[in-house]
C-alpha cells in the first residue's frame, strides 16, 4: 500500500464483562483500510468481526469495553476522542449499515425524517434543503418515486428497500469510510446481489473506503479488494482477494474455501465442513484458537499463539500459522511450493 491508510486499527482488544466472566471477543486485531478500497472481513459467527467494527465506532452495548488498542482514523485515535467529538464523527465521516434492515430503522418515524435528521445533525442547512438532499440520496440508491416515498414508514417498505434507505442514510453526509456489517445477510438471494452491486457502484462513484463484514465468501470474492480472515477474535490471515483465493496460506482459510460449493465441480461433490466448534471466548485456548479444529495441528499450536507471518511470494499477504515458522514441517497447500523447493 503506497497511500497512507484512512483507518488503521492497531492491537484492538474488546471484552464483554458478563456474569460468567470476561468474554474476550476481540483479541489484538490490527488491519489497515486504504482510501477508496473495499476491505472484506470474513469469519464465522462469534469470530469478533462485528464487535471489531462496533468498537471502531465505539457503539458497544453497556457490558462491552474496549480494553486496549488504537483506531487511527484521519490522523486521530478514535479511542482517545471524547464522546461529543465521537458523535460528530459518526454518520458524518464514518457511515454504518447494519445487518437487519427490518429492525434497524425506527418504526415510528418516516424514512425521510430518519435521513433528514442525520443530515441536519451534521450539516448547517435548512430542513427544506435537507429534504432535497434526502430525495437525491433516495434517487442515488434507486428508490423509485423518491419524493413521495420520503413520507413512508419503514413497515411500508420491503427488506431490500429498507436496506437502500439505510444505505442512503449512511451516505447522507459523504462519509470517507462506510462500515457495512453483513448488509445482505437478512435479504433474499436476488436482493442480496442487487444491494451488493449497488454498494460497489456507489463506492466507485463516491470514492469512499468500505469495510464489508460478511460470512459469505461469494460476496467477498465479488466486490472486495482485500480480505481479513478472523477467527477466535484474531486476524488469521489477510491479503489481496486474488492472492487469498488462489493461495490460502492458513488452514482455517483453506477450510472456509472448501466449505463453499463450487458449481464447476458438478453436482455430486460433497462439501467439506470444518469439524468442531469455535472456542469458548471466556477461556480461549492459550495457543492458536483454531488448533483444536485444525488437521495440521502440532504440539506448538497448543502452546503459543503464532505471529502473523508475511508470505515471501506475496508481499501483502500474512498468515497466523506456526506452519510458516522456519523450523515447521512443510505442508503441501499451506506452505508455498517455492518454499519447499528452496
Amino acid at each position: 500500500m503506497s497511500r497512507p491508510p484512512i483507518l488503521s486499527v492497531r492491537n484492538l482488544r474488546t471484552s464483554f464483562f458478563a456474569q460468567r466472566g470476561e468474554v474476550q471477543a476481540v483479541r489484538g486485531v490490527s488491519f489497515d483500510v486504504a482510501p477508496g478500497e473495499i476491505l472484506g472481513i470474513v469469519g464465522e459467527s462469534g469470530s469478533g468481526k462485528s464487535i471489531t467494527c462496533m468498537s471502531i465506532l465505539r457503539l458497544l452495548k453497556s457490558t462491552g469495553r474496549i480494553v486496549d488498542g488504537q483506531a487511527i482514523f484521519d490522523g486521530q485515535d478514535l479511542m482517545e476522542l471524547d464522546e461529543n467529538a465521537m458523535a460528530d464523527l459518526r454518520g458524518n465521516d464514518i457511515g454504518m449499515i447494519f445487518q437487519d434492515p427490518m429492525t434497524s430503522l425506527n418504526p415510528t418515524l418516516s424514512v425521510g425524517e430518519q435521513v433528514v435528521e442525520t443530515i441536519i445533525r451534521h450539516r448547517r442547512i435548512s430542513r427544506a434543503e435537507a429534504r432535497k438532499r434526502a430525495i437525491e440520496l433516495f434517487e442515488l440508491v434507486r428508490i423509485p418515486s423518491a419524493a413521495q416515498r420520503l413520507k413512508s414508514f419503514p413497515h411500508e417498505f420491503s427488506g431490500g428497500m429498507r436496506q437502500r434507505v439505510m444505505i442512503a442514510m449512511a451516505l447522507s453526509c459523504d462519509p470517507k469510510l462506510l462500515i457495512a456489517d453483513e448488509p445482505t445477510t437478512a435479504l433474499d438471494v436476488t436482493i442480496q446481489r442487487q444491494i451488493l452491486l449497488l454498494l460497489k457502484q456507489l463506492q466507485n462513484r463516491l470514492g469512499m473506503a468500505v469495510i464489508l463484514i460478511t460470512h459469505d465468501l461469494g460476496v467477498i470474492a465479488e466486490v472486495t479488494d482485500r480480505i481479513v480472515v478472523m477467527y477466535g477474535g484474531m486476524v488469521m490471515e489477510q491479503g489481496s482477494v486474488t492472492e487469498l483465493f488462489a493461495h490460502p496460506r492458513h488452514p482455517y482459510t483453506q477450510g472456509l474455501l472448501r466449505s463453499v460449493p463450487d458449481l464447476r465441480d458438478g453436482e455430486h461433490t460433497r462439501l467439506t465442513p470444518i469439524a468442531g466448534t469455535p472456542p469458548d471466548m471466556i477461556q480461549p485456548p492459550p495457543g492458536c484458537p483454531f488448533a483444536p479444529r485444525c488437521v495440521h495441528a502440532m504440539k506448538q499450536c497448543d502452546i503459543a499463539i503464532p505471529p502473523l507471518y508475511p508470505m515471501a511470494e506475496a508481499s501483502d499477504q500474512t498468515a497466523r500459522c506456526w506452519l510458516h515458522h522456519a523450523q515447521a514441517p512443510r505442508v503441501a497447500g499451506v506452505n508455498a511450493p517455492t518454499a519447499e523447493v528452496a
Partner: protein
Amino acid sequence: MAGYVLQRLGQMLLTLLAIATLTFFLMHAIPGGPFVSERMLAPEIATALNDKFGLNDPIWLQYLNYLRGILTFDLGPSFRYPGVTVNEMIADGLPVTLRTGVLAVICVVALGVPMGIVAALNRNKWPDTAVMMLATIGVAIPSYVIATILLYVFALRLGWVPTFGLDDWRGYILPVFALSGFWISFVARLARSSLLETFEQDYMTTARAKGLRPGQVLFKHGLRNSLIPVVTVLGPVVANLITGSFVIEQIFALPGIGRHFVLSITNRDYTAIMGITIFYAALLMVMILIVDLLYVWLDPRIKLRKTAQ
C-alpha cells in the same frame, strides 16, 4: 378516521345497551328491594311506594320504561333520597371526583414517566434502586394504608395540610397522592422496563451510529416507542381515577361520586345503581377510544379502519 370514530361510537351504544340490560336484570335478581328494611313499613305504604316507582309493573315493562329514560338522558329519581334525581347525584359528586381524579392522572404521567426514565438511564445505579424501591412500596401497599400514614404524618404530626375537606389547594395534596400513588409506581416500573427494552433495539444503535446526540436518541427514538405500553394502561387508569375511589373519599371525607355508588348498592337504590354503572361504563369506553386514537399517533404501523360491513 371520522368513519372509524363513528363506528366505534355506534359500537359503544350497543355495549352500553348490553351493560344496562345485564345490570338491570342482575340487580332485580338480588333479593330485597329499596323499600325492604328491618323496620317493617306498613304494607299499604310499601305497596303505595312500589306503585309510585312502578315496581309492581311486570319486569319487562320496568325495563322498557327504564331504557326510554336512558335514551333521553334521564336516569330517573333516586329511590332512597326523596326529591333527588340520579342525574343530580352524579352532578353533585362529579366535580369533586373529577378534580381530584384529573390531578391524580396528571401526577401519574408527570411523576411516573420521568421516574421510569431516570431509573432506566441509571440502570443498577443508586437512582434506579431508589426509584424502584419507592415504586415497589407504592405497588405493594394498599392506598388506604398509604392514605392513613400520610394523614398521620403530614396532617396530624406536621400539620402541613388539613385532615379533611377541600377548602383550599392544600386539601387536595393528600387525597390526590393517595389516589395516584399506586399508579405512579405502576407506570414508573412499566416505563422503566419498556425503555430498557427499547434501548436494546437495533434502531437505537442506528440512531447512535448516525451521530445523534444522546438527548435526541432518548427522546426522539427511544421514548416514543417505549410509551406505547404506558399509553395502553393509561386509558383504564384515567377512567379508574376520574371515577373516584370510595375508600379514599371516605378517609378524606370528600363529597365525591364513589361514595354514592357503594351506598346505592347496599340501599338497593335501583336507579342510582343503574345510572352510575352506565355513567362509569360510558366514561371507560370513551377513554379506551381515546387511547386507541393515541396509538395511531404514536405508532404509524397501527392503522384504524372500519371493519368490513
